[in-house]
């Protein structure tokens, strides 16, 4: 499985109600939900800006839990959505699985 694919699966696992809130907030910031699929680290950025850092932490933890179930090291997953560098390392890790 590719990292993008894994992220997309995680994003849809959040469920429609939660995704609706996140997408509304992204649009309110002038962004587009599709942007998040291109740059996954923007997810926590937008959630933190619009819904508070505690919710960004929560979504981050949900991602770590999801990735762990796909055999990804939690430490690598924890950095994946924080910045482009974290995502790059995560993508490499997933490719090598």
């Amino acid at each position, binding site marked *: 499985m590719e990292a993008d694919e894994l992220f997309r699966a995680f994003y849809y696992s*959040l*469920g429609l*109600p*939660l995704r609706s*809130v996140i997408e509304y907030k992204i649009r309110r910031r002038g962004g587009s939900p599709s942007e998040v699929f291109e740059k996954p680290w923007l997810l926590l950025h937008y959630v933190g800006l619009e*819904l*508070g850092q*505690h*919710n960004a*932490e*929560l*979504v981050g*933890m*949900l991602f770590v*839990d999801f990735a762990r179930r796909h055999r990804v090291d939690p430490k690598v997953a924890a950095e994946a959505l924080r910045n482009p560098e974290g995502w790059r390392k995560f993508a490499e890790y997933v490719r090598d699985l």
Partner: protein
Amino acid sequence: MREFFQGFTLVYGPPGSGKTSLALYAAAQMGDRIMYVGFYETGDKLRDKIRGLGLDPSRFVVLDYLSVSDVDVLLSSVVDEYLKAAPDVVVLDGINALPQSREAASAIYRVFQTPTIAIGEEQIGGSHFAYVADSLLEVSQILHRGARYRRVRVVKTRLGPSPGAEFYFTISRRGVHIIKRWSQSRLGERAVAAPSGRRVVFADEVRNSLMRIAPGYTRPGVLAGSRVGAFICEHPACLRISAAYLCDYLDNVKVGVVSTYRSIGAVAAQMGCGVEEVVVPASALGEDLPLEEALGRVGDVPVVFLYGLEEVLHMYGVERVAYVLDFVHSVLPESAVVATFRGVEPVPELLSIFNTVWRYFPDRAVVVKSALGWPVHELKIREEEGRVVFTL
């Protein structure tokens, strides 16, 4: 209010019953730094609520969580935030959103070492959280005959009031306040006011009779925390007697006058005194706010005269009359309250909410109840030269 909240307190009840306000206000009494964790209300709305209670939002760390299906991760995130914030008090609003297992309840109980107030919906009262909680408070909102009552019932406690104890409470910009039921045990020993005797005069024979029973007690003053019920007839003479009493008190002290309709001011003017009457229609007394505003206008006074309570009685029943009086005494615990009913009988249920009850007819007055042992049961009344004279 702190007596209700010991260790881990679980507050539960239906939506709109005042659980969150009660918890926020209690938390603010228990520590300087409060962490609020909510799963339903948004942070902005919660901060509005905090301001609405007259509290400072800067004392609150507000964490409004998104609703997620993985409640285990949610719990883990909440614990992380708790360790980071290190608050004095925690409010967990919407505990139904967390895992409902025995393990989760036990974990929360053990992790949150600071005083914690958890809020849940009605069904949480039978959950694992209820078993581990140190205190269990059931909150409800009762709408009866058009009046609203908010009630808190102590279901379980380790240190506070006895289980089963029930209290009304009120929510306003003054915060949340428990309205305790008045009883004669709250009567103070000192008189807060005595009438001047310029308009209501007791004949020598009455004074002598009084002095025989209680030396030095020649005038019927009112004690701190006392309640006097005055049941007056419909005849204009009865209103004049009542106004004469009011004016005599006004000669000596500041008196707050709250009426359900404008009446006593004009009669008092005939008796030679000016009364600033705060009018609150009985139709508005089904809610707390109008009464609270009226008392705010009255200010801190040693005596409050309430007029037109017969309308409150007819509209809402005895329960509301008692509530109004309890409300007044919760705001002004040291004041004496003189409650006037026009054209109604002092039925037994009403007698229990006063320490003294008088009944006035155009030509006589009857002491229906006197906790202090008024020695005369019935007095004759006559009006002469603008004065009301009581004789044996």
